[in-house]
């Protein structure tokens, strides 16, 4: 079978996954935890809300070294409208792009991960990208599975992220 050409695959640095289920509605819980993370100057690397009538789930990833602090900051989920959450300390994101609204990319990705017995915790799409949240230790195996069905361009960048962005409390004096 011919491989499908895509623009690239990128993996994230190590993250922690904060997962909150059993929510009756996204608000006021979701704005509440976002506000608390912003006050704690913690960047959100991934955020997805899934659900239907009175049964919502929030999955939120932050840098692994800040995950414990983030989980404490949001009171383990026991805030207004929330329920006790769970913290998975070592996950990573794997992003494929561009999908160009081609459902075949989703189909092939799911099948490839399934064939390699790799489970994922969350999935989201954006304008261009399909992103899976997997256990960090599984990322290499997932890349191997995906490169078995997708062809990457020559000169493709290393899968490893080169930059890691944290918020600083120091402000620069612009001239």
């Amino acid at each position, binding site marked *: 079978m011919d491989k499908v050409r895509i*623009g*690239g695959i*990128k993996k994230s640095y190590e993250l922690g996954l904060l997962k909150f289920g059993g929510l009756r509605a996204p608000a006021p819980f979701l704005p509440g935890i976002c506000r608390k993370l912003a006050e704690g100057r913690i960047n959100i690397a991934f955020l997805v809300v899934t659900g239907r009538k009175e049964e919502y789930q929030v999955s939120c990833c932050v840098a692994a070294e800040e995950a414990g602090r983030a989980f404490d900051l949001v009171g383990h989920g026991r805030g207004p409208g929330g329920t006790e959450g769970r913290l998975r300390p070592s996950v990573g994101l794997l*992003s494929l*792009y*561009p999908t*160009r609204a081609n459902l075949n990319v989703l189909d092939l990705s799911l099948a490839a991960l399934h064939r390699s017995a790799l489970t994922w915790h969350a999935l989201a799409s*954006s*304008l*261009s*990208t399909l992103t899976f949240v997997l256990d960090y230790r599984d990322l290499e195996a997932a890349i191997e599975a995906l490169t078995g069905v997708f062809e990457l*361009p*020559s*000169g*493709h*960048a*290393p899968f490893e*992220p*080169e*930059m890691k962005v944290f918020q*600083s409390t*120091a*402000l*620069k004096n*612009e001239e």
Partner: protein
Amino acid sequence: MKDRPLVLVVDDDPDLVEMVSLKLESRNYRVAAAYDGVEAWDRIKAEKPDLIILDVMMPRKDGYKVCSEVKEDPVYQDIKIILLTAVGSAVTSTSYTHKDGLSTLADDYCPKPIDLDKLMELVEDYVG
């Protein structure tokens, strides 16, 4: 009949590349994409675009470096370059500033966050 102009969009944010590409395609430009500076050079050599929309802060090779290499290479120096520059950052550690963008050999620049209509006007000015 002359081919429609080819625009190479280079940014390490795939969503930004897609957004700009869709807009360019809707205006009948041909579009190629690259997601860092090294990949950009591969596309430049393979496809010789008419114009490059080039981000600054990218892995492996940044936009300033790509811009100088293109403009100093007699084979490629005629390619127009619009640099996507971040307006003065409040982050102490950043080494990329608006002023640096203005001091490159780029033909023009467009500040981030991008105003797509303004960017399209610039593209139109150079290769429309």
